[in-house]
């Protein structure tokens, strides 16, 4: 049987399939009886140094082949996270599932503070820096669209942390490869590609946006071609591992990201349509590799003939 394990820097995942931040809460929300021990990894909902309210509803809207969300990073804050959520994450670690904590902040200092606050927490394998959330009025997106700011927040977090720092890039840029290079140089251990595309949906009769914030982040199959292209561009430009995501629903989708340069993949929106997606992707990968006599799945990473 194929060896599905992959290395994301110093972190070894037993398979390349993770749940994406914001689509499975802090773990206990894993839905539909999905067995977390099947997962290669799990990324928590974003955590800030203080609790955040998030946006007023409506927070989601369905669009052709995708969905918009503007949750606004409602989160319990660092303290409650350590107290209430970490125990469950420990169980995941025991189940040999990589745990990454998605980190958010409004200032460089806040990112740094979360990283520091998570020091010594053994339940966690890595931080994933969300510098690309389009759903808050301040912060977030600004870091994600400017190379200098992105490098700065990365460096500050790396400095504060005792764990590898993955940086999640925004697709709302002209040149995502430069962003990747900038944060790699600033000390990122891996790159998560991509967060959501900024989009809008409206209620024609009421002549107002469907989301209370006005706009939101587009995810799901609709964005897969953009995500695949960016995964390829970033993995070509950078030498640290890439975690690919955007519209993955099947093993075939996931394998396409790996061929385009992703060492591992994350699954987000598809969890809502089918809570068992991640397990099915792991199974499908196994079969696909077995049928083709692929010994280690890591062999296929970045093998695209382009």
């Amino acid at each position, binding site marked *: 049987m194929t060896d599905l394990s992959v290395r994301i820097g110093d972190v070894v995942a037993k398979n390349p399939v993770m749940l994406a931040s*914001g*689509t*499975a*809460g802090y773990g*206990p*929300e*894993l*839905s*539909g009886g999905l067995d977390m021990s099947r997962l290669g990894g799990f990324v928590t*909902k974003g955590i800030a140094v*203080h*609790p*955040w*309210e*998030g946006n*007023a*509803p*409506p*927070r*989601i*809207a*369905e669009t*052709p*082949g*995708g*969905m918009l*969300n503007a*949750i606004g990073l*409602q*989160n*319990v*804050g660092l303290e*409650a996270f350590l107290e209430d959520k970490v125990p469950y994450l420990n169980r995941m670690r025991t189940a040999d599932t990589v745990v990454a904590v998605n980190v958010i902040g409004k200032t460089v200092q806040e990112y740094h503070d979360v990283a520091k606050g998570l020091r010594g927490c053994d339940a966690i394998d890595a931080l994933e820096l969300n510098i690309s959330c389009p759903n808050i009025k301040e912060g977030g997106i600004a870091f994600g669209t400017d190379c200098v700011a992105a490098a700065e927040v990365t460096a500050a977090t790396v400095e504060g942390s005792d764990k590898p720092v993955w940086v999640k890039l925004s697709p709302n840029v002209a040149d995502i490869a430069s962003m990747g290079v900038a944060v790699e140089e600033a000390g990122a251990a891996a790159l998560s590609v991509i967060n959501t595309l900024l989009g809008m949906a409206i209620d024609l009769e*009421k002549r107002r946006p469907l989301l*209370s914030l006005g706009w939101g982040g587009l995810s*799901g*199959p609709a964005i897969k071609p953009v995500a695949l292209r960016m995964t390829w561009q970033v993995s070509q430009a950078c030498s640290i591992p890439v975690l690919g995501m955007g519209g993955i629903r099947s093993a075939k989708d996931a394998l396409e990201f790996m061929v385009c340069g992703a060492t591992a993949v994350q699954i987000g*929106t598809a*969890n*809502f*349509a*089918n*809570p068992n997606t991640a397990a099915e992707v792991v199974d499908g990968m196994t079969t696909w590799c077995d049928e083709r006599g692929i010994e280690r799945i890591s062999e296929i990473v970045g093998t695209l003939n382009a």
Partner: protein
Amino acid sequence: MPDSRSTVLENRDLGGGVWLLRFRDPTIADDVGPGQFVMIACSPPYEPLLLRRPFSIQRVEGDVYEVLYRDVGKGTHRMTKMQVGDEVQVLGPLGNSFTMPRPDETAVLLGGGVGIPPMVALADALEAAGHTRWAAYVGVSGIVDEGCFVGFDERWPNDDRVRRATMDGSIGFEGHVVAAWLDRGITGPTRAYACGPMVMLRAVADTAGTHDVPCEVSVETMMGCGVGACMSCVIENRAYRDGDEAARKSMSPYDRWLLACRKGPVFPSDRIVLDDGGFLH
């Protein structure tokens, strides 16, 4: 070559993945040269659907449960096409339930339109628990919607405890369910339960408040996952909005918005803000 509609005459499976389609279409068949081709729309262009849709369980009998729904959009319209024997992926049961009344309390059940199903479920549960002291006020716009009454009609066809109301007076009481309730009057210990449009829930909550009647409402927010994972289904915490400065300061901002799929869909009516800025019906 104008675009045309061809009628399928036959679609024969020839085995090995090979199929034969025969169409009738005078427009196209009229003047064809050997080697020409057609462009077939394999399906009409449509909205791809990703997210599941939440529906209350109206009734359970043995291993059968039922759902009452209104065709209002993409998902529900597709549901109308489900065929007997189809297998449908369903996640549930999800969410919390109504609190049972004390034995001395009259349970008042108020349901509007496709908000009636949870009231049917509650009436069934009350009966099962031997709590026969309940009254249901169920309302729709008019005779056109009377299908919404099916849950009560089937089990309590001529029961005095069920009062049907229509806005146009075509069936039962003329007016909304709160008016129907007040029409009969509130006497003795009472506990209210409601599900329906936001404007109705607000009226129920106000009335319950005025009469000091404990009240629970089931809210129908937009839901992405139904299990607490996406944080989309929120409703505002009244304590956060209306509490004084000190009260709010003592709360975490995280608790301003409550997840309806996990903490709800049933909430004490005074715990939440029954106002979504007009976003929902």
